[in-house]
């Protein structure tokens, strides 16, 4: 118990809240064609990439910011943001980790992500993204041997243009919604993964996102392609320094699973949530979409959302291939003045497609949480099934928990089942735990962990441990 208490004390305030003093190159403030050309130019991108960006920008100009979401926020001035920020030392990309700016290495060490390969972080290959650029990718050689491509997307644009050209924008087109289109126009870096036919990726791939510079939007783009019969498990972690102003994070993630392939995508999102009075924090407006393109393919999303001032995202699956499977496991925890509007979309297009949604929402303090989801079974998706379960837990009477599922069934041979409950922690359970010697806070932590277990089990080992701790910490101060 003592250890745990110590840990909690250590982490009581947002432990990733430090910022790194590092020299940056930034694009001029504001959003216009010149800035887009600047980004494209500094990344030495080919013409087709610039055209992709400009096309998206054309579309962006006519789009309006959506306003149907539950959490309202002050209008973002898109001209008052920096769209590109990179550590100066990254201008000429270092050949190896030895050449990397020691300050950067230090930062990631503090975050618990040692980049030096000798550190061998339990055999997880990491791609670290600092503000707008990817700074280091580990375990490259080992992956290359198997033909796996795991590199920053800016590198992939240079080295594997045929793959990028074919798949980029195929799931989230440049003509998508407001934030996705903004990302298409100005995205800076992110990860690119290609798993060749029949290969089972031998280790977990991981990206670690860090926003450092102030007044900067982070727009990363991740593209994962699993070729026929392959398998990959991918992890994503995020942190940012404590700052008074709100920062925008609008990433796009595209997953493509071909015949018999499986992609498992896990996120532990712990962006800075703002202080106790709701000042500052990250706006996490992310578009994540997976396409089960081939037969028997499977995409599974797992997310633990504890950070961000506002989380607004719906990791989705388009089940196009026959017999394909989509899964969504989510824990969202909001405390203090945090707000979340999250859920998923399962679009059934192919025959015999299956989807499963398990969503656990916990709100405490003055926070507000919404599960919003869509299950759409099209008329051609014969014999498809969906099962949805969303449970909410409320702590205190200043917070809110909402469930807004959209259910569309156009096929008589398909079945949809949806269940939702809202409740509070029962006095009996609390009493029982306390009787056994736990203090109220520990008791709540234990019960909440039990409530979330179904989802936590889906996470890879290392993440599950971290996530379990996060669950406890996020609810600090919400009892009693």
């Amino acid at each position, binding site marked *: 118990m003592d250890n745990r208490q110590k840990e909690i004390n250590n982490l009581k305030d947002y432990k990733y809240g430090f910022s790194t003093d590092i020299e940056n190159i930034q694009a001029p403030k504001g959003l216009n064609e010149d800035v887009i050309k600047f980004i494209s130019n500094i990344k030495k991108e080919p013409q087709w990439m610039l055209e992709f960006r400009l096309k998206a920008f054309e579309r962006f100009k006519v789009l309006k910011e959506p306003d149907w979401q539950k959490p309202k926020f002050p209008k973002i001035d898109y001209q008052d943001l920096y769209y590109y920020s990179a550590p100066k030392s990254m201008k000429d990309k270092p050949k190896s980790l030895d050449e990397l700016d020691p300050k950067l290495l230090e930062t990631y060490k503090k975050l618990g992500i040692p980049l030096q390969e000798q550190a061998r972080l339990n055999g997880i290959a990491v791609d670290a993204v600092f503000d707008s650029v990817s700074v280091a990718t580990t375990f490259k050689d080992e992956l290359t041997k198997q033909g796996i491509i795991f590199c920053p997307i800016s590198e992939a644009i240079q080295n594997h243009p045929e793959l990028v050209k074919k798949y980029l924008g195929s799931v989230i087109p440049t003509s998508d919604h407001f934030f996705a289109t903004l990302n298409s126009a100005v995205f800076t870096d992110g990860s690119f993964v290609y798993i060749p036919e029949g290969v089972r990726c031998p280790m977990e791939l991981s990206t670690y996102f860090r926003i450092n510079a102030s007044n900067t939007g982070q727009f990363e783009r991740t593209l994962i392609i699993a070729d026929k019969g392959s398998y990959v498990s991918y992890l994503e972690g995020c942190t940012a320094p404590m700052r008074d102003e709100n920062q925008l994070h609008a990433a796009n993630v595209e997953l493509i699973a071909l015949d018999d392939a499986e992609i498992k995508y896990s996120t532990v999102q712990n962006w800075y949530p703002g202080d106790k009075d709701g000042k500052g924090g990250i706006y996490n407006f992310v578009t994540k979409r997976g396409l089960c393109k081939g037969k028997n393919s499977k995409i599974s999303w797992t997310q633990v959302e504890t950070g961000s001032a506002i989380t607004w995202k719906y990791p989705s699956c388009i089940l196009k291939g026959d017999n394909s499977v989509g899964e969504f496991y989510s824990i969202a925890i909001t405390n203090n003045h945090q707000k979340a509007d999250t859920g998923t979309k399962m679009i059934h297009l192919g025959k015999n497609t299956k989807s499963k949604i398990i969503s656990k929402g916990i709100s405490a303090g003055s926070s507000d949480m919404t599960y919003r989801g869509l299950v759409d079974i099209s008329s051609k998706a014969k014999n498809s099934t969906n099962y949805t379960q969303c449970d909410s837990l409320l702590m205190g009477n200043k917070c809110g928990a909402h469930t807004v599922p959209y*259910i569309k069934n156009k096929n008589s041979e398909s079945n949809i089942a949806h269940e939702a409950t809202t*409740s509070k922690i029962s006095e009996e359970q609390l009493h029982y735990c306390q009787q056994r010697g736990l203090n109220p806070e520990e008791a709540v932590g234990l019960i909440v962990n039990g409530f979330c277990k179904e989802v936590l089990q889906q996470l890879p080992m290392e993440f599950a441990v971290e996530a379990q701790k996060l669950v406890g910490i996020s609810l600090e101060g919400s009892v009693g």
Partner: protein
Amino acid sequence: MKEQLQKDFNNSIKNLNLSQKDIEIKKFCLSNFIDKGFPNRKEEDWKFSDLNQIIKNNIGELSFYNDQASTNKVDTSVFVDGLEHNKIVFINGRIEKIDFDYEKKDQIEIIDQSETINEFKNSNSLSDLNNAFTNKCFKILVKKGYQLVKPLIIYHTTNSKIWSKNINLRLNFELDKDSSLRIIDLFNDTSEKNFLNIFYNFELKENAVLKNYKVDRFENKNIKYSFNNINQNKNSISETFILSSGSRFSKNEINCNLNGVYASAFVNGVFSLNNEKHHEIRSIINHLTEKTKSYQLIKSVLDERSKAVYQGKIFVNSEAQKTDGYQLSKAILLNKESEFNAKPELEIYADDVKCSHGSASGSLNEESIFYLMSRGLSNKQSRELLINGFLLDVVEKITDSEIKNLIKNMIGIKE
């Protein structure tokens, strides 16, 4: 449409004895409606049923003026046999008869409220349309402690005299302390391609009991919208049952405000649709104070190219501790081209509550059919038996046994 609306509006107020002030209010409602138009799919509440488009495709140009100078003959053959009842008869939107023969005269008051405008929370442009064009509106007041002996049947009859018309109706009910009222709305249409826009407002005082049964079962090509606003005080009970089957398009909205402790609301509905029909039920239950209860059960059987929509919302504000809210919707799709959409919503700001919803849709259970067939029933009989049982569940929720039997007979459900 704008000129038509203006012209019809001028015609309709010409015949009414309204004060300048009332005319101004009506004009204001009209201009509101002209600004907003019929609701379309861009509005969240109309996402699954684009009324603007539905009117365009099924009716085309609507006219809004109804000449109500001459009376219509009441066709007694539509009256329900075998059940003594009070009557209100609407023919083509005109009130032809109000008859409370079975009741004590001094316990029921009928008040002309044509000049008042109803403003509802959670309403839409159709309430403006209704306010601008209704020319007669009555309030039925059931006095303290009086429980009506017989149910009240409201006949909504339309005949072939009207075509491409918009009809607006409005009724207000007030149930004083300890009173009770049973209402059956019966729709009987021999007209085609009209748009009926009906608004009811109920005020339930302490311990009042309201039972409202809406039955729309005769095949017709009309488009209907009906809005029930129910304000409930301490310990009052409202029960709403909707049988949604006959019209080309129909949307029933129930907005229930539970303002007093121990108030409870029950909403049950059956969709039985075929032949390209498109029906919707939208319910909003607002739990505004502690210890209130709501229960909702909606079942659908959808055949041919029909479409049913259920949007149900349970709202619990931060004072409404100890709320008990439950909602379940189930649908059977009999045909490949039928469609069921649901949006069961929970919006909760209090922590000590018990709220849940469930929604399921799919085909008839093949195993059950197999079981019944192995017992000697034909495929057709088995399917009918299963559907019968599926719907019986909702009809059994009707608490008034007299009316339960009437409705069972009407839709041919066996026990």
